[in-house]
């Protein structure tokens, strides 16, 4: 790659598309018009310049290929990012979701012409109900946080429909994902934070104190972000329900529970799924995700509209006719059209179809096996503040007595060993947290190599702390000046001088 030296001695490793642009260069061309020409609208309605890059196709390919080399990815290596479930993304899913009869269907086509899509969506609703133990499922939400917002809207609508206007308090454990309180904040509800006890469970006494007739519900991640399955889960749910609240389950950690336990059976009223975590939709460098929501019987009428249903039963001769319907007390529409059909639902459908009941149970069992194995291998070297059998992830402390090395340094140093770091500084209740989620798609050799690297780094932290403070060393880029980014706020490429004057 070219290093271009520019002013202020900042080296440009890869120019932007604007810097690569050269006036008059052409990429993909469109065919000539085959209709008689119509005059354009009057000039005052037209733009005066179009500041878009001018590149040849090969320039574009090379540019993005160069960029791609700067990314760490699941296809490239181990990505034990806690709470993100960075499992392997099966390649067949990439092919099924691009079948021409899926990819070129318009969301407003008459239902008779998209029975394949609707059948897939209907079956997906049914499968997710079966996996989670819920009575109804919407596929509409676009991501986990979007599903959470959907769930909280339904909880509010439920209480409102009963004339129970005082219920505006949401109980949220201190270990929760930040999206939980943020979803509640979007509705103007208040948050009551519930502490965790010494074993990483919800503190029952604190919960009991907080339970009153203003509680809308509780948002609980189980297993929680410490990777712990709450040992008192039934008591927790009973306390919340007895005071008239609804139980929300954050499905971010569902990868531990497939075929192990169904949140609906435990008494949860609503839960979002993260198809991009549990059901292998790739993360795409930050989306698109897909966040369907399951609900118990008392919330089915509040689901977003529309849902997929059978509008005419089939028989031996004819398949059923699938179509849409609007639940009676629906909270409304969460996004345009029907959810992340192509990128989310088709991939996850393929994944579930290939796993079946036993395969899904294997997924969770091996995800939990891998996490416990890593925890066992690291226990002697790293402090595990909540040390018992974990689920699909666990949290270690990234600090050592007699060393000023922090979790951040350990994370950065791991890159030199060619691993993606774990999530750090989350959950907030553990000092210098390293949250490690290996997933089921890693072999023992990889787990051993990762454990060995972390153990070696622990030694380095005492003998050569500088090596960690200045890490990473062998990656294409070093540590970033985050303060400069926030202070100067350069959020767009500079256009070449005079660019906007050219038509």
């Amino acid at each position, binding site marked *: 790659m070219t290093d271009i030296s520019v002013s202020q001695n900042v080296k440009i490793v890869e120019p932007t598309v604007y810097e690569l642009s050269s006036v008059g260069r052409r990429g993909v061309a469109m065919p000539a018009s085959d209709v008689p020409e119509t005059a354009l609208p009057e000039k005052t309605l037209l733009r005066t310049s179009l500041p878009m890059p001018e590149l040849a196709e090969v320039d574009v390919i090379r540019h993005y290929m160069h960029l791609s080399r700067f990314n760490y990815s699941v296809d490239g290596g181990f990505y034990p990012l806690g709470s993100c479930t960075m499992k392997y993304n099966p390649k067949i899913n990439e092919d099924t979701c691009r079948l021409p009869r899926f990819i070129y269907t318009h969301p407003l086509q008459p239902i008779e012409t998209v029975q394949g899509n609707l059948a897939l969506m209907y079956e997906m609703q049914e499968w997710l109900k079966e996996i989670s133990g819920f009575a109804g499922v919407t596929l509409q939400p676009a991501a986990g946080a979007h599903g959470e917002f959907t769930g909280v809207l339904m909880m509010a609508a439920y209480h409102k429909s009963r004339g129970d206007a005082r219920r505006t308090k949401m109980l949220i454990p201190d270990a929760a994902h930040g999206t939980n309180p943020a979803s509640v904040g979007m509705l103007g509800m208040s948050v009551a934070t519930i502490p965790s006890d010494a074993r990483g469970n919800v503190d029952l006494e604190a919960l009991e104190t907080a339970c009153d007739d203003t509680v809308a519900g509780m948002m609980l991640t189980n297993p929680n972000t410490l990777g712990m399955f709450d040992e008192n889960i039934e008591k927790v749910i009973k306390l919340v329900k007895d005071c008239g609240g609804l139980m929300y389950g954050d499905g971010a950690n569902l990868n531990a529970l497939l075929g192990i336990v169904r949140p609906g059976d435990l008494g949860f009223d609503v839960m979002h799924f993260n198809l991009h975590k549990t059901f292998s939709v790739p993360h*795409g460098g930050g989306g698109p995700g897909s966040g369907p929501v399951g609900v118990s019987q008392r919330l089915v009428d509040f689901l977003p509209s529309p849902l997929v249903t059978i509008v005419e039963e089939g028989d031996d001769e004819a398949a059923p006719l699938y179509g849409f319907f609007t639940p009676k007390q629906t909270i409304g529409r969460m996004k345009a059209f029907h*959810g992340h059909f192509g990128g989310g639902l088709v991939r996850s459908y393929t994944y579930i179809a290939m796993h079946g009941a036993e395969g899904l149970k294997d997924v969770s069992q091996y995800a939990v096996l891998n996490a416990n194995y890593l925890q066992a291998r690291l226990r002697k070297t790293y402090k595990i503040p909540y040390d018992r059998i974990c689920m699909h992830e666990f949290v270690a402390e990234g600090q050592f007595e007699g060393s000023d090395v922090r979790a951040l340094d350990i994370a950065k140093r791991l890159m030199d060993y060619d691993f993606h770091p774990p999530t750090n500084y989350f959950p907030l209740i553990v000092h210098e947290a390293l949250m490690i989620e290996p997933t089921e798609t890693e072999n023992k050799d990889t787990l051993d190599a990762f454990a060995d690297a972390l153990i070696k780094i622990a030694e380095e932290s005492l003998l050569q702390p500088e090596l960690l403070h200045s890490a990473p060393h062998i990656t294409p880029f070093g540590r970033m000046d985050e303060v400069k980014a926030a202070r100067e706020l350069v959020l767009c490429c500079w256009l070449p001088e005079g660019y906007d004057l050219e038509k």
Partner: protein
Amino acid sequence: MTYIPISPKERDEMLKIIGVGTLDELFDAVPKKHRFPKLNLPQALSEMEALALLGELAAGNENVREHMISFLGAGAYNHYIPAVVDHILRRGEFYTAYTPYQPEISQGTLQSIFEYQSLMANLTGMEVSNASHYDGATAAAEAVSLAHAQFRGKRKKIVMSPTVNPQYRAVIRTYTQGMGLEEAGDDPTADLEAGPEFLTQFIDDNTSLVIVQYPDFFGRIYDYAKLIDAAHAKGALVCVVANPTALIMLKTPGEMGADIVVGDAQPFGIPLWYGGPYLGFFTTKKSFVHKMAGRLVGETVDARGQRAYVLTLTAREQHIKRERATSNICTNQGLLALASAVYMSVLGKSGLQEVAELCYQKAHYAAAELSKIDGFGLCFSEPFFHEFVLCCPKPAGEVNQHLLENGIIGGYDLGEDYPALKDHLLIAVTEMNSREEIDTLLEALKEVSHD
């Protein structure tokens, strides 16, 4: 089949090190009576069988490329996607990466988002863009949240044109139901021929945001400069919901003075995919950047003096601000932002102009010819881009039924959202519609007027 790379022997070694006898013992914390439910799911398939099953399901569809001629738009558009786009999207380095929280090993994603932000800001004529929203509708709803936050919740009214996409209006209503807002202007029975200035009457000192669409849902092009001035005179912000293909040709909302421009960039390299995932874009003025939701990439340098990019202003976001965050958004549409950036780059200035020109020319040819048919006519006289409203001699649903029997998906039946427009079709024409297809539509509609 599963993707678990652990042999039974390895499993047993691992269990031994953990100190338990079997996999099942790892789940003792789960209440016994609910532990290990028997899931009623179909038998697991091999990859070969799964591909066949998905092929069978897909065969239950007819699509708008191979089986039918389509003039459907109304928020999702059938455009050509250059081959380069999917080749880049299929790079595992891009699609199997996570949100770029570790910038040292995520510069591919970060620089491509930075470039996306730049392209979008330039397209819309605005100063800054975020890294994306779920779709155009949710981006519009987030514009309401921005305005709400800008006035610290003190202005309690939004003014929404009835000619904003009905689904977008529905999503805004869903999103704002906890905010105690008054909504004005959003009346599908209003005079739909009134120009945008008719919204001025609703804008007052209590108005936080005015939302219009460009071109509007009926395809009409209005210069919103006067309306925007009127809104600004009352201190209100203005959000323009825009179609990116139209922006290639038309005066930018930025030039008109818009405060926020949102929309769906699906037309830029993202397949129809039965409605998603698409790509919500959100651009605004730099002064609103701290109130803007979503991820944001900024330029910086690394410890080695190299130009680099990081997620910045993260203090706005949910994982820091929790219940005080402007939005709960976290995962967005990263890969599709990449798709649209590749689309803009590989078509470039001239290719994009050709796409816009073809859409405009073909739509105008179609409008001119269709309006000549007995009983049919153009509903509005304003300039339009690539969508227009066709008045029909009978209910639009019946017209569409006739067209469907002839292998044509007609336009969007406006009667579903506007009671006065039950005989009206919203027709979209893109570069994908050949003259032959338009002429086929023409012939089929002539039969309607005759029977």
